[in-house]
């Protein structure tokens, strides 16, 4: 195995509020090879954005990395100073945040923001900036007349695409994207994802990608990570997880999908509600909602078991593995 581009090891993040310590990311370990596409899925509030922020070193108090390392190209980002980070961020890895409104500067035109970003990293002529800016906007399907527009003059999906365009100004080695297509119609979404995939193949950058859209995962990602209550519930090849999801939560997730074809059926979702991360359930964090929970699930925290190429955090596989021996 070549050395991975990104090696996240045992990463934990807590929000330290007055009343509680909210463990939003709990001992997450994952690796990403150059050119790989990893999709992250999981319930609202399970810690996906917190994980991406931690990888990108964008957390601010009261969030704190309580354990672990984020090794990017052999360098532990957790230990870098702010000025060292500024150097790497955006040129070597770029970030598309969940809310474009949050990330874009409302007082500056899109073109001006592109210019600032490029100037911060390269000596580059005004002409070249203009050309590159129009190029990336075109890539995401926006009329370059909007380089002069301010964020509030764009539609929700256009703002989101402008963010993606900004992340592609350089050719970074890692692109971190938090729900980058949630505001796009399916036609735009598909053409955008296909563009990103083509660029990825051309330049070999890796992508970590959060989405609620299982079809985006199914069609574009090489591997998928299912997160539950701050932890990795299952991680493995997209194909095998879609074919035979191992974790009861992954199964529920795949079943809950409504379809535009075939008969209309009532949607039930996964029973129960997301756990309070300030007081996670004992044993397996999924046990209060799991239809297959056994007695030991309430007391024993499952480790990650390897089943084939997939890793899964569920005691059902302890049994299976023991039986197999």
């Amino acid at each position: 195995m070549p050395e991975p581009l990104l090696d996240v090891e045992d990463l934990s993040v807590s929000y330290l509020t007055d009343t509680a310590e909210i463990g939003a990311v709990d001992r997450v370990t994952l690796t990403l090879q150059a050119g790989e596409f990893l999709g992250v899925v999981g319930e609202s509030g399970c810690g996906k954005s917190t994980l991406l922020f931690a990888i990108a070193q964008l957390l601010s108090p009261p969030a704190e990395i309580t354990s672990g390392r984020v090794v990017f190209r052999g360098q532990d980002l957790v230990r870098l100073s702010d000025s060292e980070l500024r150097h790497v961020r955006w040129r070597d890895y770029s970030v598309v945040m969940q809310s474009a409104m949050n990330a874009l500067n409302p007082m500056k035109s899109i073109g001006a923001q592109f210019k600032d970003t490029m100037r911060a990293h390269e000596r580059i002529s005004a002409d070249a900036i203009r050309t590159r800016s129009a190029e990336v906007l075109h890539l995401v399907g926006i009329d370059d007349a909007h380089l002069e527009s301010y964020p509030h003059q764009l539609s929700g999906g256009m703002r989101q695409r402008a963010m993606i365009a900004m992340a592609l100004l350089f050719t970074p080695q890692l692109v971190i994207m938090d729900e980058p297509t949630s505001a796009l119609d399916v036609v735009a979404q598909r053409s955008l994802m296909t563009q990103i995939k083509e660029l990825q193949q051309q330049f070999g950058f890796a992508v970590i990608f959060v989405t609620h859209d299982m079809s985006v995962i199914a069609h574009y990602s090489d591997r998928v990570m299912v997160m539950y209550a701050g932890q990795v519930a299952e991680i493995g090849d997209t194909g095998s997880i879609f074919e035979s999801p191992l974790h009861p939560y992954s199964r529920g997730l795949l079943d809950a999908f409504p379809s535009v074809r075939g008969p209309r059926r009532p949607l039930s979702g996964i029973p129960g509600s997301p756990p309070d991360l300030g007081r996670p359930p004992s044993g397996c964090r999924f046990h209060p909602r799991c239809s297959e929970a056994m007695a030991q699930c309430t007391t024993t925290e499952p480790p990650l078991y390897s089943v084939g190429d997939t890793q899964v955090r569920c005691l059902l596989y302890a049994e299976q593995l023991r039986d197999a021996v």
Partner: protein
Amino acid sequence: MSQPANAAPDSDDALLRTTGLTRHFRLGGLLSRRMLHAVDDLNLVIHEREIVALVGESGSGKTTVARLLAMLYPPTRGTIHYRGRSVHRLRSRKDVLWYRGEVPMVFQDPYSAMNPVFRVSHGVMRNLKLHRRDLDSAQRHEEAERVFDVVGLNPAGDMLRKFPYEMSGGQRQRVGFAQALAVRPKLILADEPVSMLDVSIRAGILNMMASLRADEGASILYITHDIASARYVADRIVVMYAGYAVEQGPTEVVLSRPKHPYTQLLLSAVPDPREKAAPVSADSGEPPRVIDPGDGCRFRQRCPYAIDECARVTPLLRSMGPGHDAACHVAVADAEDHRGEGFGPISSVAKGTDTVA
């Protein structure tokens, strides 16, 4: 309330009706002559107890429609009537408050819609104070907890005490919906209210919308990119492209027999996670011209069926069947050729569009 003189011509059973609703934005400085056509000539009807899905391309004008209906933008032209009253004539504070209480909006971007210095309870309590005068302080708290519970933000007591930045994207999105619910709305303008929610919580919100209609008789304008969820809750669907409504009709009819080529393209791109990725269509994804667009169909550059007429004449909505309209020259000609048969060449292509190349 007295019937105003300018009631809609056919004072009918419509809860809300727009006539020729249009909104243009000037691009660049004040002296600029370039106009961006966000919404053109929209005739939208929403009945009582009706869920209407508004779908369409990113940038096609859906949010602008909702903002016009919410009185956040004045229209460039056209009128909006609510319960027979012209919304533009609502001048007194009392009337405006009444309208805002009956017709609240859930904003697309939950990050910009909340004031970061207040706890999330603030917006809900404010709505309750303004629009539910009958409640005392204890009842307001109870009601705030109830609406948080309804959108799955529990434990509601803890959630109400959070600041917006202490919440995840999907949690904030639901705060927006809870605020709208607090006013006991008659018509909710819900702009992408589930885009940041996982399938499971999304299902909960969709079921909540359906029961709001069934139990409280509320209507909803449901703006979404998620066609499957539109199918799940909406009675009717309106498809927008580049500022125009290009097709509308009963949800099942539009989804099973789409007439406008854009609707067909849209439906053909709807993925199914259980299927293999469809081959990428030849569609260029070229953005439509909405800046000084001129006459003609705005979809023509991308349309596989475009004829000469499409470049000259802007197609208007024409009937394709009971309650089903489409704005496409070719679809109209096609419908005339095949009166009674139901399917024309366009529709027969569309039937196999799952993998159309």
